[in-house]
């Protein structure tokens, strides 16, 4: 196997390590399958690029990039951007759900206290000096 540099070997091994770690996280149920797919695909892609110099060269030429290292950086950055955007979308939805749950909890708690008679049933303000 032909390698361009020692760095490439290190990057390729790191990618394999990352892929294994992602699988381990899924196995321990600390990462849901949904997220693991993106991570596994990207780390496997990084490993393939790292180990296959001809492929890396071909892609580099096809994209008109001058230096192979830039190709790796390009894909790394593209993946990181995609992942961040994906997470932002997820966060937005989580935030929305969180809002709804907080609201529903507050309303249900109000009704529970109302049923127990802990507070005035209606919003009519009592006259000043009136006992509770």
């Amino acid at each position, binding site marked *: 196997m032909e390698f361009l540099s020692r760095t490439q070997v290190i990057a390729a091994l790191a990618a394999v390590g990352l892929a294994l770690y992602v699988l381990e996280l899924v196995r321990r149920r600390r990462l849901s399958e949904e997220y693991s797919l993106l991570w596994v695909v990207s780390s496997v892609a990084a490993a393939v690029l790292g180990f296959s110099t001809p492929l890396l060269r071909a892609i580099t030429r096809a994209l008109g990039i001058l230096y192979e290292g830039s190709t790796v950086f390009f894909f790394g950055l593209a993946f990181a951007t995609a992942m961040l955007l994906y997470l932002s979308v997820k966060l937005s939805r989580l935030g929305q759900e969180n809002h709804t749950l907080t609201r529903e909890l507050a309303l249900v708690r*109000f009704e529970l206290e109302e049923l127990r008679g802990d507070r005035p049933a209606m919003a009519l303000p009592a006259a000043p000096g009136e006992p*509770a």
Partner: protein
Amino acid sequence: MGAPRVLVIVPAHDEAESLPATLDELRRKAPGFDVLVVDDGSRDGTAAIARAHHVPVVSHAVNLGVGGALQTGFRWAMARGYDVAVQLDADGQHDPAHLDALLAPVLRGECDVAIGSRYAAHTGYRAPLARRIGIALFAAVVRLAVGQRITDTTSGYRAYDRKVMAICQYDFPKDFPDSPLLIDLARRGFRLAEVPVEMRRREAGRSFYTLGRSLYYPYKNLLASLMVLLKRPG
């Protein structure tokens, strides 16, 4: 149909200092109105104060912001059959004496949202220069977006009819209850109108818009206003 039922929604986040005076004033100047305090994740006993005043209070476990609190108020009002809701700040800025004036155009069916405006008429309120620039800017943005002149886009003293509440109880631009909300409402076909009111300076507690946010706010608000225009009308 009987007389329209009106609910005054008071969103309150850590307003233990101002709330007693606000609730007392409401009772004194607007005794006929039902009041709901939405305690927005307060840690200073705001909810207990509302209870001590015999005012129903719905408490968020965490802070959702003014928009989130208002949305909870809408849900509560809709479930209990109210026809109109008025948003009134807990900090004493909004004088309940203006409630009838604010409600009038909504009750007459002339508009769906009435906005209590500091600037619609000469009311004696004079904002600092930086703020006046911001106010003019947002008024211009809203005018461009909806083709209507709204002078006080940041006013938190507003009345909403049941049609607005029915939509907003589920779908509300919660993070941006100012000009983006007005643009959003106008684009949904709701009619906005301004009512001149006087506002006071805050009496105690912190404003939702603290110094640190005063730089971030115009940026955020402007961008959010533009984003609202991109949204698919839903």
